[in-house]
């Protein structure tokens, strides 16, 4: 019934297409929970996590689209989309607010009386197949991820895909020293056709990692998604289900992308990808003037540094004020580092206040955290792993969620996680590896059950 309804609407002439529309339609997957980013994704989707002193992770893919001239795109959201939707808004920042095509935000919706959340990345696209079907001018669909940091021109990928007449092509990057157990690893033949695929192998045969970036001929994508939707065994995931199925049924190309590419999957990856920006050659490669990464910038005056020798090897955004010492760190707009305070090896997000004489080391502070006078957060060197999230906080990094308050003279150790709005009382200590639960104010909490899908 539902399917027929769809077809009729398309036949009825609501098809979009023709002049000015791109023949490539892009779908950006931005709905995942991102639980491996811990409390950074407590209140926001992973693509909305702040990055690099002024950006959010989603800026990279949206800027790549705009810079590639692919303006016809959809953003598929599901998990805590508010920050993401506010950030992306109409897409104007990236010139994606077009009168023809442009950026759409696709949220899960109710179909007639019933509705379901997206069951996986493939399901998210499947349930929006109508968007693809009605774009009659679209030849290929680009599937992208909202949580990658990279500067990539998608046009060579699409050109390669078309020249070789592959039904589908996947972008790959040299595996090199990446951990193969985190990637789909592919082998290629001499024609850049995929000859073998292993999912997260310990001993890989291939030397290319799949980037989770695909370009599909429209008909093949439609067919695969319909088959996958009917498969009750499937998790409806692109990497896990669609890609292996694709390789079984069709010739798939592999297009090599040589530039920097990082999937921000874990706290550690997030930290390293940020710190890498302190290398001038790297930041020039990721955000070069000819390939700008755009973001709806906070309009703030230039950063103000008052102390002598106060800032070394750091990235400091407009609107930050440094009266103390900052080293190997990234400061977002509105951060204030007071006199005698030291920030080292840390990522300090918007509006944090580091008060006089305090010390912050190897720590990620989410927005609006206060570190009181004389307090100390994080530290260098090894420490016992976090007792609740041992796999996420094991290398000594400390993490504080939004609006945490570390009162004067309190001490917070390494591998510590402080949940959003937590308050560490003056003079107390949080030992290495502790997890302090957040304390979201009642006014910001949803009452139980209020998210049920009633219209």
């Amino acid at each position, binding site marked *: 019934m539902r399917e027929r309804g769809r077809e009729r609407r398309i036949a009825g002439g609501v098809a979009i297409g023709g002049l000015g529309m791109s023949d490539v339609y892009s779908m950006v997957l931005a709905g995942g929970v991102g639980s491996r980013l811990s409390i950074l994704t407590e209140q926001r989707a992973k693509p909305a996590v702040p990055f690099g002193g002024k950006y959010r992770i989603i800026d990279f893919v949206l800027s790549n689209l705009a810079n590639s001239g692919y303006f016809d795109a959809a953003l598929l959201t599901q998990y805590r989309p508010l920050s993401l939707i506010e950030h992306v808004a109409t897409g104007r920042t990236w010139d994606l607010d077009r009168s023809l095509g442009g950026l759409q935000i696709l949220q899960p919706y109710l179909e007639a009386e019933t509705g379901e959340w997206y069951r996986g990345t493939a399901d998210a696209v499947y349930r929006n197949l109508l968007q693809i079907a009605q774009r009659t001018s679209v030849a290929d669909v680009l599937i992208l991820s909202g949580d990658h940091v990279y500067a990539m021109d998608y046009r060579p990928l699409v050109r390669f895909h078309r020249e070789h007449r592959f039904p589908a092509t996947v972008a790959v990057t040299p595996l090199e020293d990446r951990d193969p157990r985190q990637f789909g690893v592919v082998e290629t033949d001499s024609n850049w056709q995929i000859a073998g695929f292993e999912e997260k192998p310990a001993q890989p045969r291939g030397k290319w990692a799949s980037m989770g970036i695909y370009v599909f001929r429209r008909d093949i994508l439609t067919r695969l998604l319909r088959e996958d939707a009917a498969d009750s065994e499937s998790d409806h995931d692109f990497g896990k289900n669609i890609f292996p199925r694709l390789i079984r049924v069709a010739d798939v190309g592999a297009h090599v992308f040589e530039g920097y590419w990082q999937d921000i999957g874990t706290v550690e990856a997030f930290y390293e990808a940020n710190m890498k920006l302190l290398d001038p050659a790297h930041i020039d490669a990721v955000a070069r003037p000819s390939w700008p990464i755009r973001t709806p910038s906070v*309009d703030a005056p230039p950063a103000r540094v008052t102390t002598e020798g106060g800032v*070394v*090897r750091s990235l400091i955004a407009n609107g930050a004020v440094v009266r103390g010492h900052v080293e190997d760190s990234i400061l977002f707009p509105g951060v204030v580092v007071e006199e005698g305070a030291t920030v080292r090896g840390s990522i300090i997000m918007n509006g944090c206040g580091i008060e006089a004489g305090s010390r912050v080391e190897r720590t990620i502070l989410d927005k609006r955290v206060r570190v009181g006078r004389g307090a100390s957060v994080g530290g260098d060197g090894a420490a016992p792993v976090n007792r609740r999230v041992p796999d996420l906080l094991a290398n000594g990094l400390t993490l504080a969620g939004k609006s945490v308050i570390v009162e004067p003279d309190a001490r917070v150790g390494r591998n510590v996680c402080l949940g959003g709005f937590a308050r560490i009382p003056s003079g107390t200590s949080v030992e290495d590896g502790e997890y302090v639960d957040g304390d979201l104010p009642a006014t910001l909490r949803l009452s139980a059950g209020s998210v049920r899908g009633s219209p």
Partner: protein
Amino acid sequence: MKRVMAFALAGGRSSGLSVLAQTRSVAAVPFAGKFRLIDFTLSNCVNSELYTVAVLAQYAPLSLAAYVGRGEPWDLNRRDGGVTVLQPYVRQEGARWYEGTADALRQNLDVLENSGAERVFVLSADLVYKMDYSWVLEHHWASRAEATLVTGRVPYGEVSRFGMLDADPEGRILGYVEKPGSSPWPWAFMGIYLFETAFLKQLLLETRGADLIIDVLGPRLGQDERLRAYFYEGYWDDMGGIREYYRAHQRLLEDPPAPDLYDPEWRIYSRSEEMVPALFEPSARVERSLFANGARVAGNVERSIISPGVHVDRGAIVRDSIILNGSRVCHGAVVERAIIDKDVVVGAGARVGRMAEASEITVIGKGAEIHPGAAVAPGSVVPVALSALLDAGART
């Protein structure tokens, strides 16, 4: 503000700002690392809820028009009102440049007429200040004035740059002297007016002179009870010349700075380029300075303003200077007490200006190239590069 509009006078060609105003109108001169002078006026309008603004541009109007655009950075892209840049245009009776403030308004009386505004602010767009115009409006209303002139304090040593006003505590204007040698009154006219629309129209049509304060209002000042003064007590500075421009930047480096650009209650908006945050390399040594996004610092920077895209290479020294967008100070170069306009290259080992307190400020025009090892004497002005002049119409 309902039924109120503003004309922002973007100025003609100011000689005071030397080569800084050669490729752009004064209102478009960069300020504080990421702003332009007109940002203060437009931001004050928006923060005062005054949403209909016409910018009157004469000199190099293209750059200003491109910068203001549809007014999005200031939230002035509106269905009703918003911002427009009005350039001189050809009429049936022929084309004329704006000959002065009054003339510019006279040529655009139709804009005022069509706006339906009952009151109109006339603002000078080359001031650095934060002012809530609604206070002026309130005072104007309460004193039943036909015209209110906004005055601000200036030090006695500087009265010769201003028109000085005498007024009683209620704001009745008792006298006015243009650029006097000395003045018993500390109140300078700031170039900010609020008029009843009908009164302004009548004045403009009855008089012939080109200048609003001298020719049109001058004869009435001290004679007409309907002209009132408003006393503004906050920080303001006019960018009358290189010395004032330089001094205003030095005040930004004081703690606390004046004006406070970091005040969330009265933000100054601007249209900025998309650039990565300022990057400080391991060899950077910085002290008491402002750094805009896009700055790249590997050398020494002290008491200076570093604008977007400026590179200070390793081994370079910048002291007490203002470096505008996209310029580069190469290895071993020393820049002291200088203002360096956009896209300048100070070659390796070159020397620009000198620290001595007494030495004059050195100014390097847009796009100029200082050759490696060259020395630019303190107080000299290096002209704008020809290439920068050629595209001055397109961008600044």
